[in-house]
């Protein structure tokens, strides 16, 4: 077991017992259960959950991640005072933060459905929601970790975290819509797809659209869109883009972390 796994092991133990994570799991348990109860229809509940997952998961991952790592500063120093490698420590910290978030998310979201029982369609959609939430968690804790090591000042760090979240969640899509409206006379298919791939929340969202709104997505007249959505090419591009969104912040964070003075 290398340093990464060891750091991961103990940090995850700490994080998963945190009140905030327990609250996070409860949030999804309550919301999912309430949606199932009030709608009486798993498909309808899942449709509502699409927006909730896309909104809440990145927010919690980036804010909780940043705050948690600021609070763990002395813990990190203690680890680094041991004979350990910084790169591995960083990865351990990242995973020790990410895995508990994923576990709480998955349990909170899936448990009510499992207890409720589902048909095949709903299972597929639940799986898509879980995958999207998991990947978004990975992306936004990666960003949180790099912010926490980059910004010494925790207030600025928290500001940066919320700023990033606002940007990718809301502002960016407004910008895209503006571009589409202003340049509506031009063929924008490729550009639009490119813009989507540049934002992790949009990638996850488009992935969910294929599951939840496949019929509507087939309404595109553009061949590029159709090809993207109906073939495996879109899947491959989206996976690559998301991977980049996880790897890039980690790579940046590791670089900063290796040179960081505590």
């Amino acid at each position, binding site marked *: 077991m290398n340093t990464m796994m060891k750091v991961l092991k103990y940090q995850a133990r700490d994080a998963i017992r945190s009140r905030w994570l327990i609250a996070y799991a409860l949030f999804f348990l309550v919301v999912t259960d309430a949606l199932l109860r009030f*709608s009486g*229809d798993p*498909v*309808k509940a899942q*449709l509502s959950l*699409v*927006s909730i997952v*896309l*909104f809440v998961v990145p927010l919690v991952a980036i804010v909780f991640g940043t705050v948690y790592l600021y609070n763990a500063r002395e813990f990190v120093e203690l680890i680094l005072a041991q004979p350990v490698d910084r790169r591995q420590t960083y990865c351990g910290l990242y995973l020790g933060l990410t895995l508990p978030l994923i576990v709480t998310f998955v349990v909170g979201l899936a448990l009510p459905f499992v207890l409720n029982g589902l048909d095949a369609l709903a299972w597929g959609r639940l799986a898509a929601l879980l995958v999207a939430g998991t990947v978004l968690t990975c992306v936004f804790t990666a960003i949180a970790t790099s912010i926490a090591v980059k910004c010494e000042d925790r207030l600025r760090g928290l500001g940066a975290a919320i700023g990033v979240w606002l940007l990718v*969640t*809301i*502002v*960016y*899509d*407004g910008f*895209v*819509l503006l571009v*589409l*409206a202003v340049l*509506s006379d031009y063929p*924008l*298919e490729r550009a*639009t*797809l490119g813009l*989507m791939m540049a934002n992790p929340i*949009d990638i996850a*969202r*488009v992935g*969910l*659209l294929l599951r*939840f*709104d*496949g*019929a*509507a*997505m*087939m*309404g*595109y*007249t*553009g061949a590029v*869109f159709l090809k993207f959505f109906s073939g495996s090419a879109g899947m491959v591009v989206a996976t690559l883009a998301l991977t980049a969104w996880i790897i890039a912040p980690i790579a940046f964070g590791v670089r900063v972390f290796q040179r960081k003075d505590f």
Partner: protein
Amino acid sequence: MRTPSLLRPGAAALLLSLAAVTTPALASPVGAAQQVVNVSPTGPVRSIRQALTMVARGGTIIVHPGVYSDTTIVVSLPVTIMGEKYPVLDGDGVRQIMTVTADSVTVRGIAFRNVGVAFTEDLAAIKVVRARYCSISDNRIDNGFFGIYLQEAQYCAVVCNVIRGTHASDATSGNGIHLWHSRDIVIQGNRVSGHRDGIYFEFVRATHVHDNISMGNLRYGLHFMFSDSCDYEGNTFRHNGAGVAVMYTHNVRMVGNHFTDNTGSAAYGLLLKEISDSELRDNIFSGNTSGLYADGATRLNAHHNTFINNGWALKLQSSTEDATFTANNFAGNTFDVSTNSRSANSTFRGNYWSEYQGYDLNRDGVGDVPYRPVRLTSVVVARYEPALILLRSNFLLLMDAAERVLPALTPETLADSAPAMRWVK
């Protein structure tokens, strides 16, 4: 749901025994017309054409198993042509296989294949021209250009045929069941796939289309124009290139049909164009890019239909006037209703909307606040098509919420004033 035609199994057995009785007559030279003529690849009568010269009016030709390849068979006298174990009539890809020009012709139990493809002529497996009382049932048609073609026919039944095209291009593919200037026809229990249009009507009257399955056709599962007073019941139209199109027609009755999985930018579960005084009831629209597209559907009465998991459940063009939508179910659609105008001239009442977020304080099953099914997103998408990719984005949800509070772009009057809280049975 087997054939209701003249020939029930008992009758068939009787005819077969008749055939057995008359068989010795085959040995004698052709003379008087015979009640039953047997055709088989190895027997004395080896073609239907030859048998037609021998059979009596109202008689029966029994076709035994084998592959028959002949010039186009013209049936010009009332006769029953009956296949045993689906003998194959092969058109070799060059000709029409059978032309019926006489009244009271029955064709059943025959496998037709390889009809010729022509660009100047509608070649078919069976073409009925100016005839009445025909019955075409239990046939299998593979690789027909057109399958069953009724031209100026009346009082005919087309029942339980299986018609499979080979899915070439629009140009090299005809329609599975094609009716032109015909009336009082029953089309029932057929399965049509892989053609240009599965079922095609033009200038047809008083015709019943029941319990057919039309799927995987290049263009429309059902396509009809100028065909008044017809009814369509219990049919399934699935996965056709453009769904179903109904145009320039009055008094259409469509009940209990399934319009399913017709996807594409120009695919509609059901396209209504210039239709008046029609009724849509108990139909299920599911998984279509557009469930129901109404363009100039005047006085349409749609009730108790279910729209589920469509891209757009309902696209209403402003040319649609006085349509009423009552007691329908709308669930899991990306967009419930979209329209190209801000003024609404259709009425919605008592429908169930899964997106409805209102409440029902007095517990009477009716929501206390109206439901406005046109979302801002659908207006945006209608104007800037690529914006569809921003669907369910938090930004658009914010805009939707703002629009709901202060409608600026969506039709204010298009609302269900009494939305149902529960699924309408």
